[in-house]
């Protein structure tokens, strides 16, 4: 199977090549996550304790400590049921909504767009793998890709809306602009590049809206750029940047039972 993206029309990526790139991204991600877990696991397991002399950070210690806090009763009386926290505070992001409806809308559109596109890509991958294993489906991978194009467009635009609000807010609102540091810009810049490059790559391929009059011959490298940059920012770079909040924030909210 050949993909649309490639260095040129004649040098398109194969399934194996895409799998190699994806595996590299996942390995970099996993290594980073282990490092983070070890860094967090350098902490102690309970109140007012000290790490044992000579002990190193341990991912297992982190996971055990986190789980213990998730299930133990809070002395502060702020604890909420875990299901409520999962649905309202993590999926629906209630804590942001309480503080700022605009910022909630911005963050929720990015979250919903991003996660939906991720899930749709996962579905596409599952169909491709099914075909690789010789299991017959009532549709071909190409047909399924066409079927996904509409939801991909919809969630792509949902994501784009959130990203534009985020960038404009950081540039226009003085408080936000003055407080923004490189740590923040890398996150926002990454999401912006991934989103825009996706629209442009698709625009060049289809000649629709986002092509900006670019030569259709540039469609494969544009798609390749989008694929690589997506693997980089959406997977590999997560543990090494502010993207880590997509993992750490839900874990923190769960550990603190929805927070105060």
């Amino acid at each position, binding site marked *: 199977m050949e993909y649309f993206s490639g260095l040129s029309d004649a040098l398109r990526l194969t399934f194996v090549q895409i799998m190699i790139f994806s595996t590299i991204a996942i390995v970099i991600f996993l290594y980073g996550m282990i490092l983070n877990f070890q860094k967090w696991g350098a902490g102690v*397991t309970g109140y*007012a304790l000290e790490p044992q002399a000579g002990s190193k950070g341990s991912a297992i210690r*982190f996971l055990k400590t986190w789980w213990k806090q998730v299930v133990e009763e809070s002395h502060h009386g702020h604890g909420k049921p875990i299901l409520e926290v999962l649905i309202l505070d993590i999926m629906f992001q209630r804590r942001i909504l309480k503080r700022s409806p605009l910022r909630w809308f911005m963050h929720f559109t990015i979250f919903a767009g991003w996660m939906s596109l991720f899930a749709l890509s996962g579905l596409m991958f599952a169909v491709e793998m099914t075909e690789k294993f010789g299991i017959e489906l009532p549709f071909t991978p190409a047909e399924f890709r066409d079927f996904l194009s509409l939801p991909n467009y919809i969630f792509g635009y949902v994501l784009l809306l959130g990203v534009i609000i985020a960038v404009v807010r950081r540039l226009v609102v003085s408080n936000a602009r003055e407080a923004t540091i490189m740590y923040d810009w890398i996150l926002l810049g990454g999401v912006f590049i991934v989103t825009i490059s996706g629209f442009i790559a698709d625009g060049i391929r289809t000649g629709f809206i986002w092509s900006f009059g670019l030569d259709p011959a540039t469609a494969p490298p544009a798609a390749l750029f989008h694929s690589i940059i997506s693997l980089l920012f959406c997977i590999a770079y997560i543990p090494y940047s502010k993207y880590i909040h997509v993992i*750490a924030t839900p874990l923190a909210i769960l550990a603190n039972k929805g927070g105060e």
Partner: protein
Amino acid sequence: MAKKTPSIDTKNLTAVQLMELDSCTRCGECVKWCPTYAASGQKPGLAPRDKILRWKQYMDKSYGLKAKLFGPKEIPQSELEEFKDDLHGCSTCGICATVCESGINTVELWEALRTNLVKKGIGPFGKQSMFPKLIGQYHNPYLLDQKDRLAWVPPDVKIADKANIVYFTGCTAGYKQLALAFATSRVLNKLGIEFTMLGEEEWCCGSALIRTGQVHVDDVARNLAKHNVEAIKAKGATKVLYACAGCFRASKVDWPRLLGEELPFEVVHITEFLEDLIKKDKIKWEKTIDKTVTYHDPCHLGRHVGVYDAPRFVLEHIPGVKFVEMDRVREFQRCCGAGGGVKAGLPDLALGVAESRVKDALDTNADILSSACPFCKRNLMDGRDSLKADIEVEDIIVLVAQALGLSVEEPKKAEPKKA
């Protein structure tokens, strides 16, 4: 060549707290609400978000990828000292936790960081370092004689030798703000509630040590908690009443953790106790207080433990009281500025925060700014005096006593002796 060691360590910081540093999205809500950041003239280092970022960077320099590959990067001592100063410019009021979009338990984080640095010999702040020695030696922070714990008790107050209920006075009410102790004891007598007190056996609750990162020093805080719990058990009590929010919080949250076990008695704030009696129609008011009253939620009673309704319920049931709310109440309350060792360590900052809170009260045109914590009362009075504002600052229990026709005057003979 000897292997470099990290400039910081992770003592007292739990694995979850280290993760919380990475969960901060830098949304800035904490900065918008922080009372000491505002009162300091927006000193950048006091912003909670900034403190989280700095310790995250220290962690990355010490335990992150680069540290793994090339060894930890040194953090200058002066930078850690500056961080310590900023860390102690916080009243641990917890508003940053309430508004944190990532749900970070910031109060626990600040206290753990303070303890971590104290263990390293950095901090606490100014006079705060005297707390462990003084409290360990005198069992109260005012250096007064334990024998005088009950010196304030006037002849009309009846205290049982043993009872189901203990009134835990607290050092400030027992030595400094006697009106609060008179009011509480006389109200309980008037309502026919038999209670006992610990007298000499009542030791400081340890709050000042815990809040300033000195929970570990000579194990004083744990000893205080252990002694108080044993003394309460010896009295045969099943319920302990507190009119001090700081002692209440320490007993409810800190003592069980220090001792590693649940307390064998119920911890109840006096306003919760009175609320229950009012609901059972067991209070017969004798006087009216025809004044407009507003209420300041003490952090240690409200945000830290979640008691918001009881004080309001009591105030609203005092005859004649017209209750009005200030801006920023309940979980979004603006701190008075006294807590977390700020009053002792940075009195000017504490005063600045108190002035902001008094201004909130003045905006309501209230006659009385009430609270349920002697420490809040002290600092709010200082804020009021600094502003030369015309508003009475009073504790709820004193207003209750007045409405029950009781005196809260301090007889001269009850003044405690100096040690």
